[in-house]
Structures are given as C-alpha cells and as structure tokens.
C-alpha cells in the first residue's frame, strides 16, 4: 500500500470526487477536525436535497414493501427525480392513511362483534339486562350445563343456550347465587352498550365489517398496482441517490483550506500510476506518494491504528477461501495472510472426514451445476462457500478412490475378515470388474490407523501454524520468534512420542502393518532410536521413548521459559489436547462410514437380497425399485449430515487449533471509495 495525498483547488472538488469514485482505487483516510490546523470539508450542495429525497424514498419503499431485489442495472434516472418522488409520496401517503384507518376500524368492529355474539344466542333484548332495582343479573359463559340452581335460591329466572347462561335473581339472594355459579365454572361477560335485539345488532355489525373488508382489499389492490409499477423505478432511484449522497458527502472526509482541498488515502502501490493518470486532466491538481510500500515504524507485532488497510491477494482458485479467513478476522498489515494454507487444509480435512468417492463426486457435480446457475451472482458468502465445497468434494473423491477405496459406504474390495453377505458385497462384485485400486485404510476396521493418520495431519498443520508465526515475529521481535521455535520443538517431541507408541508391533491382528509403524520406520527412519524403556505404558525394548524426543520436550520447555515466561507453560498440555483434538478427523470419518454401512445393511437385507432370491420377475423389479428409492433417501441423509459436520469440524480445526497459534487479525479491509459493498452473511 502506498499512502497517497491528493491536493487541488476547491473549484475542482466536485470533479475530483467524481473521478475518484469512478477509479475505485483510494481507501480514504478520514480527516479529523482540527488536525494540523485544517478543517473538514463541507458536503456538496446536492447533499441535503439528495438525502432528503432519499429519506422520502425509503419511507415509500417501506409502505409499498418493495424488497431489495438484486441490484438493478442503474439505468439513467430522469432528472425530475424529486418531483416524481414527491407526487408519488402524496399519492401513497393518502392510500396508506386510508389503509391504516380501515385496519383500525376493522379491529374495533371485530371486538364489538365478539362482545355481542354470545348475547345473540339468548332470546332477550339488550335492554332487558339492566335497569333493575331489586334484581341482580348474571350473564356469562359456562363450561357445561349447570343443574340445581334452585339450591342457591328458590326464586330466580334463568335463560340458557349452549355454553351460556343468564340468571335473574332478587338482590338478597344474589351473593349465594354468585358463589354457586362461580363454583360451577361460571365466568361473567360484560353486557354490550346499547339496547335492541342483539341478533339484529350482530347482523348489522357483520355487514359493516364485510363492507370495510372490501374497502381494505380495494386500497391494498391499489397499493399493489403502485408497487408493481414503481418497484423498478424505486430501487433504481434509491441506488442512484445513495451514490449521489455518498459522493456529495465525501468532502466531509477531506481536509480543506480557504482555496484548496486535501485528500489522504491508501492506494495499492502498483495502482498509483493509474491513479495519477486518472487525475491528470484536472489543472492544478496533483497527487503524490507520501510513502511508498509503507514500512512499519514500530516493532510491536500487534495491529495499530495507523496501519494501512489490507487487500488480500491470492491466486484466483484460492480466493473464495479468503471469505473463511475474513469470517474469523481480516489479517492485519503485519502478518502473513493464512489463506494459502487454509485453501488446502480446509478441503483436505473435509475430504478426510467425508472420504467417500460417491459422496465426493455428487458434491462436485452438484457444486458445478449450482455454480453455473449462479454465474451472474455476485461473490457473496454462499457463492464463496460453494467453491470451497467443490474443492472439498474434489478431495473427498481423491481420498475415496485412492485412500479409503469406497463409494456410498460400499468398499471397492470387501475386507479380508468379511463373513456376512452384506460385508462380502463390494464394487468389484457389483460392476463385475476387479478394480485395480487396493485401499490402504479400511475405515471401519483400522480405526487406530485412522487416528494415527489424524495425528500426523495435526503435526503438519500445527507445524505450519508455528512456522507462519515464526516468520511473522521474525521481523519484529526475536524473543517471540524463539518462543515459536520452542513450541515447534515441543510439538515435534509430542508427535514422535505418540508415533513411537503406535509403532509397537510391526503387524496387527489382521496381518496389516500399522500406519504408526510405517511413519516411524519410513518417514522418520532418520530419527535417533536410542531411548528410555517404559514397558508399563507400552514403550517396550523395541520402541523405547527416544532420548532425542525427550530432549526436545525438555529443551522446548526451557526455551519457552526463557522467551515467553512461565505463564506459557500452562499451555504445554493445551498443545497435547490440540494434537489429540485432530482425532475428530477419524471420529467423523468412521461415524459417517458406519452410518452409510448401517443404511446399506437395512436396504440390502430387507429389500434387495430377498428380491434377488425370490426368482420372481415382478418381486425382483419391485424390490429393486423400492430398495433404490429408500437407499437414495438414506444416502441423502448421510450426505447432508456428513457434509455439515465435516464443514463445521474442518473450519473449527483451522480456527481453533491452527489460527490461535499465530493469527492476530483485526486488520481494516481495503475499501476503495466508489465500491459499494453489502455486508457479508
């Protein structure tokens, strides 16, 4: 980033704003009032009018419920925008008032109707319920018919309808009657105002309501027509006005003197020439570089307020992964953008967890199909996510074919110890060709090997994290950089000890060589073998704990104490937990495979095999048809569940285990003046 300064005479202000907006190159640094004796600029004269209309327009849009559709191509909006919007506002506010009034009236009517309705059931006029000196009237709802009113009072008159009761009692007996009624689940109702036959009142009210409802529908229809006619205009006008306001208010971010203005901002260093050329046509305007390739003055590695904004730059296929980094935090100007690591580790972890050629292929095909449909969609959160998942599908396919050798839960070759008919089924038998790929890892059999593989992945991933941290700190603070070396030593020590433990036997019960043994003897063959024998916890004479690994652990802790201080020792076991945490790769992978296998067993044993054995054409076709439909549903469940868990766990491994090792974030994203962005997510 280059810090640029643009200075020009005030009469050119408007034209400069126009061209800066068009260039989309400068991330403007807001000028603060009084800084260096310079005042902030005043907005252009168009600002107040434009924002006033914009407010009106937003209120119209909310009345008409115009939804923010995809950004309409900003067609030229006619000059008399103001007049058009004002007349539209007049029109709409009238309709809106009518609508609100009618709605309120309707509510009132409904309440009245609810009040009168019960009384219409009783054969009395409303006037009959009040105006007595010696009588008490109880009207109300009852749960069920009440018998034995005479037990409360000998002298009464009652009228009842289903669920309703009206009782007239002389005043002296009213207390006894009230108690009796309440005991029998009576709740009294207020007698509505007015007199006359409640049935008549009710039917009048209902007719009134119908009329009002028709009127409301009319108004709503008119609003609908207005919406249809003006929706396009409104969103175009809104976009146009928002741009106008942003431009008109830009001088608020500039510094001005009586005759000149000054814009300060950041420009990508290689784009500075372009900026200069773009501004050449204005006389008296000149742009200059304050500092080229901004150097950082202070040594602390943390972000600082004066840091330039950050523009992430990665190769195009990796760019969607920037979204995953930004979701955590924008990297600051002083550190390496981890996108290039994430772009591999995220889909590889996803692939390891899904690890099935069938699902991987489906993900890829579906992803590409959706991607083509979304060709014109802007690069928002979902589109970025889609591309990351296509990569995930790619790695799943790769791992599924070459590593786990299975598709849709059915292996390419059945395991050696298979005994049941389902276990014996494999793709080689189904397709009738012997697939030449033999799996090095059967997920459901070699769980320990899968865990060892996860720990290997943990070592590689965490080591990359510490190395990035080391590079980040190298320029600023040697001490912190040495701390990263200490962590790297401890990590390697832990890893070697774990691998040595898993390399106990050269062959397991089924005659396979465990992964740990392979890694220890092939990959780590150069590592010094001499060590401490501790047979009680599995470090026998053939695989003692190497002295070198112990040395790394002790030396790492010593170095850590010297560089980062004693508090960091607390994280010693945290690192161990981090390593073991990668076992989730194995756990999710095995769980997903087991689920697919279980569903296959259900479908095969209850539908496909009986159909095959029946020897009857009809039941054969029927069994296959139903079996395949149910299998599709089952596999769809596994597919979705597997994908969701794999996404979350893959992100988590990167955010929690990986990023915490080195990532500071809190950078300001580069937002050039003129680029209109919508917030992500």
């Amino acid at each position, binding site marked *: 980033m280059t810090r640029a300064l643009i200075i020009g005479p005030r009469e050119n202000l408007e034209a400069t704003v126009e061209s800066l907006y068009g260039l989309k190159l400068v991330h403007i640094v807001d000028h603060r009032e009084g800084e260096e004796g310079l005042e902030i600029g005043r907005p252009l004269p168009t600002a107040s009018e434009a924002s006033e209309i914009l407010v009106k327009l937003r209120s119209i849009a909310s009345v008409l419920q115009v939804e923010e559709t995809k950004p309409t191509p900003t067609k030229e909006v006619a000059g008399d925008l103001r007049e058009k919007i004002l007349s539209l506002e007049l029109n709409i506010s009238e309709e809106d008032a009518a609508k609100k009034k009618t709605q309120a009236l309707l509510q009132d009517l409904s309440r009245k109707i609810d009040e009168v309705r019960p009384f219409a059931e009783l054969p009395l006029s409303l006037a009959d319920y009040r105006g007595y000196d010696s009588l008490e009237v109880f009207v109300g709802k009852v749960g069920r018919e009440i018998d034995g009113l005479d037990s409360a009072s000998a002298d009464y008159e009652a009228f009842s309808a289903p669920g309703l009761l009206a009782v007239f009692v002389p005043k002296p007996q009213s207390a006894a009657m009230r108690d009796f009624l309440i005991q029998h689940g009576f709740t009294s109702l207020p007698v509505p105002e007015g007199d006359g036959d409640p049935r008549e009142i009710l039917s009048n009210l209902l007719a009134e309501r119908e009329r009002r409802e028709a009127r409301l529908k009319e108004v709503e229809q008119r609003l609908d027509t207005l919406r249809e006619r003006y929706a396009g205009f409104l969103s175009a006008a809104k976009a146009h006005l928002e741009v106008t306001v942003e431009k008109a208010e830009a001088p608020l971010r500039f510094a001005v003197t009586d005759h000149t203005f000054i814009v300060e901002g950041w420009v990508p260093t290689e784009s500075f020439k372009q900026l200069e050329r773009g501004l050449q046509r204005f006389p008296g305007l000149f742009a200059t570089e304050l500092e080229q390739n901004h150097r950082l003055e202070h040594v602390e590695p943390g972000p600082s307020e004066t840091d330039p904004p950050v523009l992430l730059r990665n190769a195009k296929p990796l760019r969607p992964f920037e979204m995953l980094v*930004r*979701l*955590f*935090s924008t990297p600051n100007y002083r550190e390496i953008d981890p996108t290039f690591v994430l772009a591999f580790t995220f889909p590889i972890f996803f692939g390891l967890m899904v690890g099935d050629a069938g699902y991987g292929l489906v993900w890829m095909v579906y992803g590409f199909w959706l991607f083509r449909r979304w060709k014109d969609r802007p690069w928002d959160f979902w589109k970025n996510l889609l591309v990351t998942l296509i990569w995930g599908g790619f790695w799943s396919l790769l791992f599924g074919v070459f590593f786990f050798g299975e598709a849709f839960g059915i292996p390419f070759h059945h395991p050696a110890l298979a005994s049941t008919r389902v276990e014996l089924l494999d793709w080689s038998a189904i397709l009738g060709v012997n697939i030449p790929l033999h799996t090095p890892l059967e997920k459901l059999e070699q*769980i*320990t090997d899968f*865990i060892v593989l996860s720990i290997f992945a943990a070592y590689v991933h965490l080591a990359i994290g510490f190395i990035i941290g080391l590079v980040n700190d190298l320029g600023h603070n040697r001490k912190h950089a040495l701390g990263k070396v200490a962590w790297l030593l401890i990590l390697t020590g832990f890893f070697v000890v774990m691998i040595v433990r898993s390399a106990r036997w050269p062959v397991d019960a089924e005659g396979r060589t465990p992964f740990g043994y392979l890694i220890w003897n092939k990959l780590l063959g150069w590592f010094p073998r001499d060590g401490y024998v501790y047979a009680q916890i599995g470090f026998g004479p053939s695989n003692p704990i190497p002295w070198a690994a112990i040395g790394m652990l002790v030396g790492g802790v010593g170095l850590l104490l010297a560089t980062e201080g004693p508090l960091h020792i607390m994280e010693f076991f945290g690192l161990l*937990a981090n390593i*073991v*945490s990668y*076992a*989730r790769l194995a*756990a999710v992978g095995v769980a997903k495979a087991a689920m697919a296998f279980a569903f296959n067993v259900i479908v095969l044993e209850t539908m496909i095999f009986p159909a095959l054995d029946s020897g009857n054409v009809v039941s054969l076709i029927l069994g296959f048809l139903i079996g395949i439909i149910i299998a599709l549903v089952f596999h769809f469940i596994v597919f979705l569940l597997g994908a969701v868990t794999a996404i*979350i*766990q893959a*992100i*988590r491994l990167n*955010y*929690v285990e990986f990023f915490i090792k080195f990532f500071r974030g809190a950078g300001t994203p580069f937002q050039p003046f003129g680029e209109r962005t919508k*917030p992500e*997510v």
Partner: protein
Amino acid sequence: MPAPAEAQGLIGMAIALTVAGTGLATAWAEKVIGAASVGAIAEKPELFGRVLPLVVIPETIVIFGLIIAFLMLGQLGT
C-alpha cells in the same frame, strides 16, 4: 493383548460410561455457550466467525472420550 474374560463385561461398561459421560459434558457445555453466542450474534452478526470456534470448543471433550473408548475397545477380545 485382550483382558481376561471375566473383566470384559466391566470394560464394555467402562466404554459406555466414557462415551456417555463425555457426551453429556459436551452437550451441557455447548448448550451454555451456544445460548450465549446466539445472543451475541443477534446483537452483532459479524461476530459469527469469532463465536463458531467457541461453540465447538467443548467438542474436544467427547473426542477425548472417544479416543479412550477406542483404546479400551482394543482390550476387548473378539
């Protein structure tokens, strides 16, 4: 090296207890964190990226349980 036959039942129960206990602990922890995080996201949606790792941190507990369970499964004869 499988454990003696009379201990196998106890090992099976130990495996079940490990998975059940760690699963419960994880669920409880995530419930508390999840409720708080949703509140935070409602206030500031841009916190999503920061909050997601916090929510899934307790999952490590059940992963440890799973590992221990696998190790104990190795002690069971077939």
